[in-house]
């Protein structure tokens, strides 16, 4: 069974130790909410697991995964990676081709946009999207390529109630298929039985 194991992870940012010997395990089909006050290192933890930030010591182990780390992770950070010059559909199509194996067709893009409720705006330039709509476009990436681990940094920031419910359903669907979710959040994830990893200031 797939699992993500983090052991004794230490990460420094600008001479300051942000994460000090953090250890936890997320098993397949489980969601884990990372909570704690601002600046405690929630985002840093997610970036370190994604391999975007260097770690000082400790290990991040992906047990029983058949793909390499970069191909196994969806990362949704604070920034939406949306190009304002392109239309919603063009943004989505690029990420579908980049994150997937290249075999996904237009129907995958349309299905993903439909899930987040942006299909009717597909031809609109992304510069006219509201903040919540840009967020939904970023979340649509999760549906474009099947990847087992979702690393989400405050995924529901700026979303309305209906979109939150849709997103909770997306996560539940992902977990039911044996996926893993690790989300930094200040709000309830909307998933029954989610674990909680509480980071305390060091």
């Amino acid at each position, binding site marked *: 069974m797939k699992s993500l194991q983090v052991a004794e992870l230490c990460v420094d940012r600008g001479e300051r130790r942000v994460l000090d010997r953090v250890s936890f395990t997320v098993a397949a089909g489980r969601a884990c909410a990372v909570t704690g006050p601002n600046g405690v290192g929630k985002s840093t933890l997610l970036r370190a697991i994604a391999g*975007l930030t*260097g770690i000082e010591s400790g290990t991040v182990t992906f047990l029983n995964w058949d793909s*390499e780390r970069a191909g196994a992770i969806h*990362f949704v950070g604070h*920034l939406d*990676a949306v190009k304002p010059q392109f239309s919603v559909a063009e943004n989505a199509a690029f990420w579908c081709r*980049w*994150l997937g194996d*290249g075999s996904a067709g237009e129907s995958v893009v349309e299905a993903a946009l439909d899930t987040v409720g942006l299909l009717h705006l597909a031809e609109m330039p992304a510069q006219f999207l509201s903040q919540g709509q840009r967020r939904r476009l970023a979340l649509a990436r999760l549906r474009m390529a099947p990847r087992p681990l979702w690393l989400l940094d405050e995924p529901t920031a700026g979303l309305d109630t209906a979109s939150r419910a849709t997103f909770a359903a997306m996560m539940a669907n992902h977990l039911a298929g044996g996926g893993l979710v690790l989300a930094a959040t200040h709000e309830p994830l909307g998933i029954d039985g989610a674990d909680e990893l509480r980071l305390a200031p060091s």
Partner: protein
Amino acid sequence: MSLGALFVRDVRLAWSAGGGGPVGVIFYLAVSAVAPFALGPDLPLLARLGPALLWIAVLLALLLGLERLFQSDQEDGTLDQLRLGGAPLELVVIVKAAAHWTAAALPLIVATPLAAILLNLDGATLALTLVTFLLGTPALALIGSIGAAVAVSLRRAGVLIAILVLPLSIPVLIFAVAAIEAAGAGRAVLPPLALLGALALVSAVVAPIAAAAALREID
């Protein structure tokens, strides 16, 4: 991962609203149009200085778009996603440098015959200048990607990138102009051209490794 999609996206971004593509071409043509006014209507003098002037204009025009090469992707979170695409970062750098060349350098090469008329270049000199552009500009784009990657997280890094990149670009300029001068003096053209090609090949190996190493340091 689909490197072709990345290439097409970058070229389109450079030539869409707010991109740097048209600015470089306008700068290049402006420099070559102003030169005859500054140097005076001395046709032989213009013809002798012309290729060197064009090379200086190309070198500076290519610097214009460098600042945004990685920075625009870093600012909006795209770079994080590019790093998670499954393709090695070195390949991402090569593709982005190739897109930069296509969007910035290729239009300059296409515009060169027009600039050559303004500088009174004859057909043979123009042809040789175009050959040196084709060999030399890929090296400039690749060397530029190192500077752009090193300065990616700095604001207003344009001047810093120029300071980093210009010394590394000097050999390209020297051998390109040497080839054109050799032709004018009746000497062998091939040795400087071969060295120019060698510079392009060396930078194709070194630049992706160096730029990718710099990009990995961002956090």
